Structure formats: C-alpha cells, structure tokens
C-alpha cells in the first residue's frame, strides 16, 4: 500500500511536467508565435542617431518591425523635423524606407507616419524579407538645425518565419 502510494506521488511531478510540455507543443503547432529578435527603448534622445544596426539575421526570412516615436519636448519656434528611417537587404538588394516616421520639432506627441499625412496614424508596422548576414539598420535624422527638442523611440523586431 505504502509502496503504491509512494510510486504514485513520485510519478505525479513527472506527469505534471509532461502535460505542461505537451500543452506547449500543441499550442505551438496550432498558432506559433513570432520570435522577438531585437528591441529597444531609447528615451529622452536629444541628438540624431546615425545608421545603427538593429539586427543581422542569421537566416533569410520574413521580419516585422513595430516602431513608435513621440516628441517629449518641443520647440514651438523650430522649423526642424525629426525623420526616422529603416534599411534592409532583400532578394533584390538594398531597400530602404527613409521617412517611415517623422515629426515637426514644434509639435509634441506621437510621430506621424509617412503612409498617411492627413492624420497621425502612429507607430508603424513594417514587414520585409531580409537576407542572412545583411544588417537591418535604422537612423534618426534631424532635417534642420538643432533646437533642444527631445524624443523617445521604441521598437521591436520579430522574425515571422
């Protein structure tokens, strides 16, 4: 009796662990989740950011970038503009989206998307194919004179396949 009880109790954790592992496998098979390969929060930036590597893929694949930027401190007299761009290399060669997000330095809040210039349509989702061994890069340029403005930039890059 004692022997049976002990065996049952000993088997219990193994059973629990194997169930958890089965559940995870099953969930992955039904709806695999994209893998986050790079992310960053760059708060209170006051200067341009030169071309910077986000990630260099180890394999060819489809990637998705989600990016949001917001002006923390504006300068109402400024004529300058912050411009965020991304570049990558696909099957054809070098590609870029040089003005993916932008914001006039005299305006507070969310950057605008170059996809829609009537309303702020905000943080952009950009999907692209990138070749192994070629860097995915971004930059933040200031079109105009420095003006004491401050922005924050947030991004996440996922590999979809």
């Amino acid at each position, binding site marked *: 009796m004692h022997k049976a009880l002990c065996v049952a109790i000993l088997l219990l954790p193994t059973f629990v662990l194997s169930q*958890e592992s089965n559940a995870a496998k099953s969930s992955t098979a039904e709806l695999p989740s994209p*893998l986050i390969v790079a*992310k960053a929060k760059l708060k209170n930036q006051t200067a341009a950011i030169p071309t910077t590597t986000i990630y260099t893929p180890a394999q060819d694949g489809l990637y998705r970038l989600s990016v*949001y930027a917001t002006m*923390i401190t504006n300068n109402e007299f400024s004529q300058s503009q912050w411009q965020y761009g991304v570049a990558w290399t696909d099957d054809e060669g070098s590609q870029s989206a040089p003005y993916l997000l932008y914001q006039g330095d005299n305006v507070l809040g969310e950057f605008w998307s170059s996809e829609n210039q009537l309303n702020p*349509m905000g943080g952009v*989702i950009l999907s692209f194919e990138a070749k192994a061994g070629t860097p995915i890069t971004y930059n933040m340029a200031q079109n105009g004179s420095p003006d004491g403005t401050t922005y924050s930039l947030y991004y*996440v890059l996922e590999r979809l396949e």
Partner: protein
Amino acid sequence: MYKTLCVAALLLATLTFVSGSKRADASPATTISSPVIIVKGKLANLTGVIPQTTIFTPTATGLYRLTVYATTTTADPNGGSYYGYNLFFTDVTGTQQSYQELLASTDSQIGVWNNGLVPYSVAFQAEAGTPVSYSLTLESGPGDTAVFALYYVVERLE
C-alpha cells in the same frame, strides 16, 4: 523508511507545482520572447456609432500593437454615410494621443473597411494605468441601416 520516502516525494511534488506557478507569473513582467496577446474581441451586428470605449488598461508601461479589421456585413443601398474607427491612448508624454479614422466604412457596399490603406496594425506606447480605448464615429452623412462586424487583437511587444 516508507514514511520518509513519502514525505520527500510529497515535498518534491509541492516544489514542482510552486516553481511552475512562479515561472508563469514572473515571465511577462521581466522580458518576453514573443508578443503576448492581452486582449481580443469579435463584435458582430454593430449598427451606428460606438462612444469611446475602453479596450484594456495596461498594467505595465510598454509598446503595444493593435491589429483591427472591420467589415460591413449588411450594406444600406441608400446609405451615403460612412463611419470611422478611432484609437485613443496615453503615451510617455502624459497626454492622450489618438489615431483618427484608422479604418472607414462605405455603407452602401458590403466588405472590408479601409482608409486608402490595407486593414490596419499600429504600434503605440502606452503608460500603465491609462486606458486604451476606441470609438466608431459617424464621419459623414445622417447615418443609415448598415451593419458592421469588428475584429481586433492587442499584443504587448515588450
């Protein structure tokens, strides 16, 4: 001997349960390796405007992504109106931000809403404790009898 063995086994079983539950709680708060769906919805048989309504209130400040799809399931052949889907959130600046007319209907036609763009995903940074909300507003015309369906998913990205 058996007693000792049983006590040890019971402790092992308890430890397995406890550490398992700690893993699940701790993981999202520290770092995530894949986007996490935190809220989703399917709203069928909608008609008319929807006032500003909370989708969710973040418990953590972070980068979020909304994917939204809307379609007119029953058109109003005489409908000259159109409705817009709007998103509201509060980012690190502390002021409410909005995306107006992310999607817009054409009430005289069935089918997918758009705004000159493909059905939409947007990224936004939201502060903990501030509601993320949406509304459907009448953008043009007197309103009509068109019926809509709305689908959405919000993921936390970091």
